[in-house]
């Protein structure tokens, strides 16, 4: 179970790292090599993003990777096959990250059935708030996959309590306003936000958006269980290649 895995592993490692990979960027074989490199660098969890043509919550770096994967012809079924291959090959939990329409068009039941078969343990879908997610939640529960919800610094205390009721696995806290890929100043404001989150849930917390340096991960140690690294790794991939990404993750913690 995702929650137990995170708790045990946090005891051993202090803080966990979750990486993010856009499936099929720049192509499926390269994505596999990237996953392999990241896993061997000791990363503890991984999000596999199924590309979507309108990724409204993503900034320019991840957006371009989505588009380029789609232009290269990646299909949703390729992503399921890819997930199956990596979950068979590597012994860390993998989650799907994507947008509502991918799940909706596939059929929620079918999506979760195939995700389960592929060995996926959780899903992150930023444009499905629980109010719109009745059938999504039911399908996830039926297949024993954890739907991960997002908590944001703009979320009111009442709504944090409401969202806490839908928590499975962990919560994904976003460090600031905006989209993926921009700079974040890690400050005491963040501590207050994380305090508000802790007050409503016992589940582990992951923190993402703007985590890009060892200093950021050090700052987060003891504050959250998981640090999420997305755009920065992709930037390094684009400029310096897959070995540089592996090296980056090795030095991050």
């Amino acid at each position, binding site marked *: 179970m995702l929650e137990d895995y995170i708790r045990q592993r946090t005891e051993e490692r202090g803080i966990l790292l979750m990486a993010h990979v856009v499936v099929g960027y720049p192509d499926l074989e390269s994505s596999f090599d990237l996953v392999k490199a990241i896993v061997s660098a000791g990363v503890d969890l991984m999000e596999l993003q199924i590309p979507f043509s309108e990724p409204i919550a993503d900034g320019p770096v991840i*957006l371009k990777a989505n588009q380029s994967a789609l232009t290269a012809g990646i299909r949703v079924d390729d992503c399921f096959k890819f997930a199956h291959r990596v979950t068979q090959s590597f012994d860390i939990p993998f989650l799907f990250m994507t947008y509502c329409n991918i799940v909706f068009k596939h059929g929620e039941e079918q999506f979760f059935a195939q995700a389960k078969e592929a060995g996926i343990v959780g899903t992150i879908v930023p*444009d*499905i708030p629980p109010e719109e997610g009745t059938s999504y939640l039911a399908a996830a529960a039926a297949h024993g996959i954890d739907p991960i919800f997002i908590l944001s610094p703009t979320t009111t205390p009442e709504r944090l309590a409401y969202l806490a009721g839908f928590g499975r696995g962990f919560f994904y806290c976003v460090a600031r306003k905006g989209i993926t890929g921009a700079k974040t100043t890690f400050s005491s404001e963040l501590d207050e936000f994380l305090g508000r989150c802790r007050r409503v849930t016992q589940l582990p917390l992951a923190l993402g958006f703007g985590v890009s340096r060892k200093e950021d991960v050090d700052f987060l140690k003891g504050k959250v269980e998981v640090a999420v690294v997305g755009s920065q790794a992709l930037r390094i991939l684009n400029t310096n290649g897959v070995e540089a990404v592996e090296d980056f993750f090795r030095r991050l913690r």
Partner: protein
Amino acid sequence: MERPGYYGQFGGTFIPEILVATFDQLRAAFEGIKKDPSFWKEYQSLMSTYSCRPTPLTYSENLTRHFNGPHFYIKREDLNHTGAHKLNNVMGQGLVVQRMGKSRVIAETGAGQHGVATATMAAKFGFECTIYMGEVDMARQRPNVFWMEQLGATVVRVTDGDRILKDAINEALRDWATNMDTTHYVLGTVCGPHPYPEMVSYFQSIIGSEARDQIVRQAGRLPKRVYACVGGGSNALGIFSGFLDDTQVDSVRDPSDNHSGILRVKVSNGVELVGVEAGGEGLETRRHASRLASVHGSVGVAQGYKTYFLQDDDGQMLETHSVAAGLDYIGVSPILAAYYEQGIVRFEAATNDEVLAATRLTMKKEGIIPALESSHALACAFRETPQMSADDVILINLSGRGDKDIFTIADALGDEGWKEFITTKAEAYSA
């Protein structure tokens, strides 16, 4: 009971958590103005002193004679300040922004009409203004870019995706997710997450309520059909809203029968509402933007709401095509999607060629230069004249004027004098 923000199975609020509080605030502000009896008066007064409301209803006797009937009545939204119905929505939202105490507005634009309207509103109300516009649309609507900048707006070129309207919406949403404390997103049509479809149609309903009064007064009766072009659907819902109680839907198509059959709607004595989408190069070429009139649209969720989209079977959005930038969009209002399934509105498509011919005829016969978007409504009405009798009355919503389309129309008509002028001008600049 239907959930708020839902129209049948369509609509909803599919937004990232970071924007939830902002939408709560907007919904509350909109509920506030709906309940405030002085608001609509303030809005009407603003629109009659700053724009030209009520816009006239023109009896087009030359077109009527040309086609041997029906009687053509044209609702003149082209006579709004800034040249299109877009201002109705924008000024309404401007008043909402004032009430929320925000200081900056952002907007997407396709044809540039909504961008110009928003930049105008921002200038008048003293807001900072940023407009997102796809690179492709900037190239085909350059004059509007010029005016937006002159009006004080920053125009941001969107180079991601297909570089058209949908991509501009994505960028505006990203800006908003960062700057919501100071910023309001002035969405330009009846799409997007709740409360936009409801709020924008609320402001645009001013078209329909005027038009119904006017046609009853001027023609002495209700129209047999009302035609409007449909991009997102705001001018269409605006005019249709005045006639919803006058429609009679006798039999409704089976909603599970997605696109497979002809709409089984029989309208006996009621007003028939006709929405005209962009047929582009022809539905059979797949190079079009007809979500409902073609068999290529299907239900999906994107840009925060559920409706019919032009998408592939994986849910990836398709490229759309139209000579009219303002109709070149993947989705359609969730309210219109519901009316489609309920048989309340009939959807048709007009091709680029039909649209250019209709533009030409309207200029020559009536001395009116329609926007290419609006010409879709004209083209469909022209095509259907044989189905009507000489003394039927029809109403066409002329959503905007065509000055902005001068480059596109001149190209399409192959106007040599214009080409020569541009060439000379270009030479002078490069000298």
